[in-house]
């Protein structure tokens, strides 16, 4: 629960190097911290500040704007139920109520065993598959109460580990570019017309 591990510090530097301005790596590094610890700790934000040469308050400022960053530990599984319009029309609220009953908690809280956190969320872009929910940002479409019960049982028993990684892990594939394939980082203060544009007479794509 802390600063980046040496391995993640190396990864953080790789991420920073992709951007023309280091600060652009702020959100990716906050995600990396959450992937490491399950939430974003104060120590992690301080470490990010050091890496980006900004103040910890600036990191907190960005972090606190975004819904997905949790500054306190959440359950092993973050269950997000959509109740926005398309889901509301076909049972999103009822689905949320069922989950509240089943887990014995209200939306916005965590079960005492630290297993599940339940959230009532906004549209997650599965509107034609309503009602829908996500567990650690993995989709479950057109879910019925029975399916929800099954999913909860499977999660508790660890049977869905291959589909639902731990909270904080989003893409399990990282962007990797071989050094010889890399083009260039386009720094904002270097005013050079791209060669393929300059070659073509006026150089303007009008």
């Amino acid at each position, binding site marked *: 629960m802390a600063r980046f591990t040496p391995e993640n510090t190396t990864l953080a530097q790789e991420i920073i190097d992709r951007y023309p301005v280091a600060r652009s790596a702020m959100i990716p590094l906050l995600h990396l911290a959450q992937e490491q610890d399950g939430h974003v700790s104060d120590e992690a934000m301080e470490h990010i500040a050091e890496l980006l040469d900004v103040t910890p308050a600036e990191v907190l*400022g960005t972090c606190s704007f975004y*819904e997905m960053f949790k500054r306190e530990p959440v359950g092993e599984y973050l269950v997000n139920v959509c109740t926005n319009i398309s889901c509301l*029309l076909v049972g999103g609220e009822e689905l949320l109520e069922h989950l509240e009953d089943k887990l014995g908690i209200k939306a916005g809280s965590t079960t005492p065993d630290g297993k599940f956190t339940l959230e009532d969320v906004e549209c997650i872009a599965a509107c034609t598959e309503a009602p829908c929910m996500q567990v650690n940002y993995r989709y479950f479409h057109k879910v019925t109460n029975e399916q929800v019960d099954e999913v909860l049982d499977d999660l508790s028993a660890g049977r869905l580990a291959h589909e639902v990684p731990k909270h904080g892990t989003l893409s399990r594939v990282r962007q990797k570019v071989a050094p010889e394939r890399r083009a*260039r980082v386009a720094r904002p203060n270097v005013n050079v*017309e*791209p*060669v393929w544009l300059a070659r073509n007479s006026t150089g303007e*794509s009008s």
Partner: protein
Amino acid sequence: MSEAGPREIPRIVSSRWDLEDGFTLDRYESTGGYTALRKALDTMTPAQVGEEVKAASLLGRGGAGFPAGVKWGFCPPGVFPRYLVVNGDESEPGTYKDRLLMERDPHQLIEGILIAAYAIGCGQAFLYVRGEMALAQERLAGALNDAYAAGYIGRNIMGSEFSLDVVLHWGAGAYIVGEETALIESLEGNRGMPRLKPPFFPAAKGLYLQPTVVNNVETLSNLPWIVSNGGGAFAELGAEKSTGTRLFAVSGHVNNPGVFEVEFGVTTFRDLLYGKQYGDGIRNGHRLKAFIPGGASAPWFYEEHLDLPLEAGAVGGAGSMLGSGAIVVMDETTDAVKAAWRVVRFFARESCGKCTPCREGTAWLEKILRRMIDGQGRKGDVDKLMDVCDNISPQITWPPKQTTICPLGPSAVSPIASAVLRFKDEFEALCQGDAEVSVAINGKAYLSQPVQPEQPEPAEAPA
């Protein structure tokens, strides 16, 4: 509406959706992938690519509907680097298409990015994916890695002088970041708050205050087809100003909710809601109460709007918008107050807090509606709602006037004005019989009147 229903048209952006492995490089290459990029690099100047896109009259598919080719042309000459930022932050309630494009055909998007960057002369591209979309991120990361290794991205693409790095980036949960200047702020590592206008277009000053083109995922996904088949062929599809095809997500109370690629500008709402191959009619034989034609921000439409074509001008003229291609259908059993409240709660939650009318206004709208639903509505509440709406968007008209620097605040006015004017009795029932409105409401869709109050049955579905 044509009797035969919509004609057969090519699937321009969704052609690989049914393929199990449509997201892989092998499948993409074996189904014509990256040939458009090859064609552009080998036979076309950047300006010629730009001309094809202009000839296609490709309208932006993100919501505002601005012509993509024209937007590209706003970059000031001689100022470099230029950046391309891809808006994959799809979050407008009811909208579900960009996620599918990213998950099921990521290479098509990547090829579109490369074509756009070649034409504009971008030094670097950033692909901003919504934070909650883990599978889309995974598919794009895999596709980018494969495309780099195969020589389609990076240094000297396909042996040409064209070089470009594409950086995959994702957000962390904030609807407002879909607004292009907020997206840029977020990409710079800041709180995702829209920037003050002018400049109205980031093409003048965008990322790091450099010329920046922000294009939506669906917009860019059209480019490989346009380059392969020509802008003229694209413009032959659809209506005069709404060309090509477009993805529409039909959700809510229809028998067959789904995302459909249809000919833009000519297909009607009736085709899409009742057509067998599309929405297939209202569930349980119910009657249509209202539908949202273009995402939660759009004023609602009713039965009398069903025969309008899905065309930007026609829908705008009737007082609403096609927005992000999200059609939400509500049948007669829908509680209009509840539906309006739920949409307003969204805007109240997602207001970034920068402008007072939006921050305070949306919160009060949500609270007043909530107390009505909870049985504590008061006389005068409806008038109060409309007064707050009028403060956020003066004269409650369409297109909405803004007292804010982005359209989020005024968007919260749409569901309320729509519900209050059309379903007054439902509000009266919650406000001790008082749903009088003293504020002037001017939006055309809000004032729409039912043509035949007692229509027997919805029209037969087209064949």
